[in-house]
């Protein structure tokens, strides 16, 4: 039994007649203490997958289990770092973290909670900015607050939904180092969703490609055997790095060529309804039961189009 697992999960949105199947047949097993990176294109259903793991959404079929028990809703054992930071703009850095801490540890004394909050604000190097509001912070600082908020909940699993994709390359590099440092400090299970294969290989123990939606599914898991800590300057030279990177990218590109395309055709049927002469003539034409009525039907078919 895996620590965190998804089994044969499907998830789609929309009503029956206009449905998009985002995720199809997702199977994932994560062991305790692992750092797994999931790499996929933009719009490939990465956030939907994260919502399943965090309990914000339930799969249509299949199951998501944490320590053997199905996940029914959000829990403090699985903390989520949102893609767009999702800080509350009317609270300061300290208050944003405090909101989570007060909620998860209501039995602690005020002093203990304050000390706990300060520690995590310090962990992401934001002590000088603790009384600032998110609007006064840069993107990187905001994301660090979001990370601090998630970590301060002392979760067993940290779920990161493209935490760095909105940042510039330099800030990104610093934050990658920070994530690595935090992981070295307290050994948490981390699931990182990203669109950057390099980032995944630099940080994770395992990379899993996610094919593009609709019907996105996880590809084969690729273990990264490069020793930790990895150096971003030299790692690009390693043949192992290149091999994994190529494998991931190839898989994703190959999956894209097998895309399913939805075709929509409008079928116009001829005036086949006979006029019912027993009915009274309608006062407003076209709005009566007398017919004939021209009926339009839209027929949609799913076709596999090779590119």
């Amino acid at each position, binding site marked *: 039994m895996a620590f965190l697992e998804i089994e044969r999960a499907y998830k789609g949105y929309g009503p029956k007649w206009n449905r998009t199947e985002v995720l199809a047949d997702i199977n994932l097993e994560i062991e305790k203490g692992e750092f797994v990176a999931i790499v996929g294109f933009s719009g490939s259903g990465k956030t939907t997958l994260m919502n399943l793991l965090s309990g*914000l959404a339930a799969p249509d079929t299949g199951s998501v289990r944490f320590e053997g028990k199905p996940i029914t809703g959000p829990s*403090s054992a699985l*903390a*989520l770092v949102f893609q767009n930071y*999702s800080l*509350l703009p009317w609270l300061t850095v300290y208050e944003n973290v405090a*909101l989570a801490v007060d*909620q998860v540890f209501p039995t602690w004394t005020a002093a203990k909670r304050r000390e706990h909050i300060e520690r995590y604000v310090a962990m992401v190097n934001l002590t000088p900015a603790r009384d600032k509001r998110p609007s006064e912070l840069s993107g990187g600082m905001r994301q660090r607050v979001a990370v601090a908020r998630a970590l301060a*909940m002392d979760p067993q699993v940290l779920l990161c939904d493209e935490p760095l994709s909105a940042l510039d390359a330099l800030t990104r590099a610093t934050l990658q180092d920070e994530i690595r440092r935090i992981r070295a400090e307290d050994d948490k299970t981390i699931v990182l969703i990203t669109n950057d294969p390099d980032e995944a290989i630099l940080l994770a123990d395992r990379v899993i490609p996610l094919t593009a939606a609709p019907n996105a599914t996880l590809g084969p898991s690729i273990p990264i055997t490069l020793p930790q800590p990895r150096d971003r300057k030299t790692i690009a030279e390693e043949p192992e790095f290149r091999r994994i990177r190529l494998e991931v990218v190839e898989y994703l590109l190959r999956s894209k060529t097998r895309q399913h395309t939805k075709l929509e055709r409008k079928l116009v049927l001829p005036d086949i309804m006979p006029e019912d002469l027993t009915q009274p003539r309608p006062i407003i034409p076209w709005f009566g039961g007398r017919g004939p009525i021209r009926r339009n039907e839209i027929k949609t078919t799913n076709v596999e189009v090779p590119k």
Partner: protein
Amino acid sequence: MDFIRRYKLDSLLLPLIGIAAFLILWQFIAGSIKTVNYTDDFGDTMTKTTRVGVSADLPSPAETWAASKPYLAQPFAKRGELDQGILAFTKLSLWLVLQGYLIALVIGTPLGFFLGLSKTFTKAVDPIIQVLRPVSPLAWFPLGLVLFSSVKLADGGGKTVFGASDAAALFTIAICAMWPTVMNTAVGVRAVPQDYLNVAKVLKLSRLKTLGKVLLPATLPYMFTGFRLSLGIAWLVIVAVEMLTGRPGVGGFLWQEYNAGSYSRIILCILTIGVVGLVLDRLMSLAESRFKTA
């Protein structure tokens, strides 16, 4: 021209020019007193004064000023129930507005929240709101009188301190001023970003905490816009209500002076209503801008 530009005088000069043009137009339209000498049937020379002009009865700016002076010079004087300084009247009106406005907020804000939160509730109640919203204060007032016909609070001496007409006045102000608050709060609640709600969900905030820590702060800017518009409407309604009840206040004074034929003071009342409305709006804007979050 350089001088004007250097001291940014145009922002002062242009309004002054506007006001001057307005006064000239007013002077042009207003009537003036004309004295006519004529010989009557007995051969005596008599003088008769008539008003002439484009709108003969409209007092000119100078006449308005002369007639308004005592009310402005002693703004808090109380010579009689319906003969008080202009600020004394304003105070009375404002007090009534404040009461009605607070009732509107107390009812309107929760109603807006329910509308924003529940689609079912919106579907059930929205048609009624849409029908009631455009109804004029003049139409509400008689209904208020009927609704609260049995309301009578008397003081020790048996004098009524709060009667049906007071209740009806408050009812009219409250029900007319309520709608902007209701609508804006509802829109604000619907516009709360899903991200914030997700945060509340992930942190497993209780319903009450979600309301207090997430929904309320996120809706506050919208709510304040509603509060500001509501106050504007409450101030509009007060004049109508005071005219109908004849109670002392700016609107009551206006109507009384019209009946008494002192047209200059009507203009004083109108200007007072305008200025007070402007000040209220500015104050609310100030409060609103304080609550704007990123």
